[in-house]
């Protein structure tokens, strides 16, 4: 078969500099996709509605805070205002969480005044380590897995401590007695 002559007309020589299918589409649509993501950020920042960032549904007990993240996520004074971790002080506004044991070395919080007391009482701290939120409406935050207890309370005899079984029912997940 004959061919076009001269050779320079036979091929589209500067083709590499031009965009072809599908790049013509993907380029524009990528800009639209990234633009949509940025618009989403802009909307959430300027509207102050942080619900989209929730990592999951709150429990029923805390459902009233679902549209007000800063009830629990409060600025850390030690850091810049941008960071909003869950604060123990937010939990202690409603819940009294005294020390679990006067000898405990972990999860010790700040002393605070509790109603009907004149002296500040030391509280437990780092509530959200054991009581994990955002796991769905039917999760009971008080149901802490026994494994978390075992982390500190294993092998008590070797530490010279005597375990006294509580008067109430056995911890969940065990057949009786202590872990």
């Amino acid at each position, binding site marked *: 078969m004959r061919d076009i002559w001269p050779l320079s007309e036979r091929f589209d020589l500067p083709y590499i500099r031009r965009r072809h299918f599908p790049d013509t589409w*993907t380029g524009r649509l990528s800009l639209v*996709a990234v633009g*949509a993501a940025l618009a989403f950020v802009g909307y959430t920042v300027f509207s102050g509605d942080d619900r989209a960032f929730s990592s999951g549904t709150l429990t029923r007990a805390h459902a009233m805070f679902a549209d007000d993240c800063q009830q629990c996520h409060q600025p850390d004074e030690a850091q810049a205002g941008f960071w*909003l971790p869950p604060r123990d002080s937010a939990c202690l506004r409603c819940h009294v969480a005294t020390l679990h044991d006067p000898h405990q070395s972990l999860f010790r919080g700040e002393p605070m005044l509790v109603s009907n007391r004149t002296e500040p009482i030391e509280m437990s701290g780092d509530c959200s380590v054991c009581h994990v939120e955002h796991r769905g409406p039917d999760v009971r935050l008080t149901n*802490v897995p026994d*494994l978390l207890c075992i982390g500190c309370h294993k092998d008590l005899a070797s530490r010279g401590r005597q375990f006294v079984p509580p008067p109430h029912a056995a911890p969940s997940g065990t057949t009786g007695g202590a872990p």
Partner: protein
Amino acid sequence: MIRAVLILGVGATLLYLWDGAERGHGSRGGTALGLTFGGGALAIMLFCAALSLKRRVPHWRIGRAQAWLRGHVWFGLLSVLLVGLHSAFLAGGALTFTLWLLLLTVTISGLLGVLLQQFIPRLLLHAVPGETLAQQLDRQLTNLRKLAEQIVTEATGTVEPTGVGHTTTMVRELAAAAYAPPAAGEVNPPAPTPVAPEALRRFHHDYLVPFFRGTSAAPLLSRRRSDSLFAALRTMTSPEQHPFIDELATLCERRRQLLRQRRLMRILFAWLIVHVPLSWGLLALSILHAVSALRYGGDA
């Protein structure tokens, strides 16, 4: 590479199960291990996006293109697992749910692309023997049109038909007559009478021009109809013109092949229209998610 990805995947899953058992709650995105999974997935997404940038700058000599593509596919799949382990396979809130949707769409479209890349190039090899660069298709199709005009001009002096009338109907009737089954008792049907070069010019005007202009209903798009019409044209022209007609028939076949290549190429690359933009959207939202999750205390 596949082995490395498998080892990483199995190792990450075992770590996830161990961490979940240790914590009692199951692993979460905000734990050290969960953040490692999330960070790993984000790093892989950035690596996958780098393939797109590398394609735009082909003179970057950073590894072989095949290795990049394999890494893109296999580590991309690993990132889905890591995201699952990071999120404990939960949908979470609106942003994380959107991220899941985007990730699954990007992954499925990518897998479809891998499948098409395995299938269509082989099909092209057989269906389009004269395959050309996808970016040269338009130029080659234009070249074929110019060549057709050149051949008709050489054969007849001009491409413009001089006479008036409906030669299209004439050509069709002649084609039908040439291929009509012989009547009962008739051994050889009478040969149609050859007409002047006007037949070739008419044929060019009525059939070649619409075909080379890309008219969707052009009869020459069908190979069978094309064979029939060219056979009829040969019966209407003198033997001296037959080499030109053969060349024209070859050009038409070449154009049909290139059109077939263009169709297959569109199918081959159409998935990228979904895959690439959503990947960039996924990457942008993933970075946003990382910042917001750390902002709200790493318990995302």
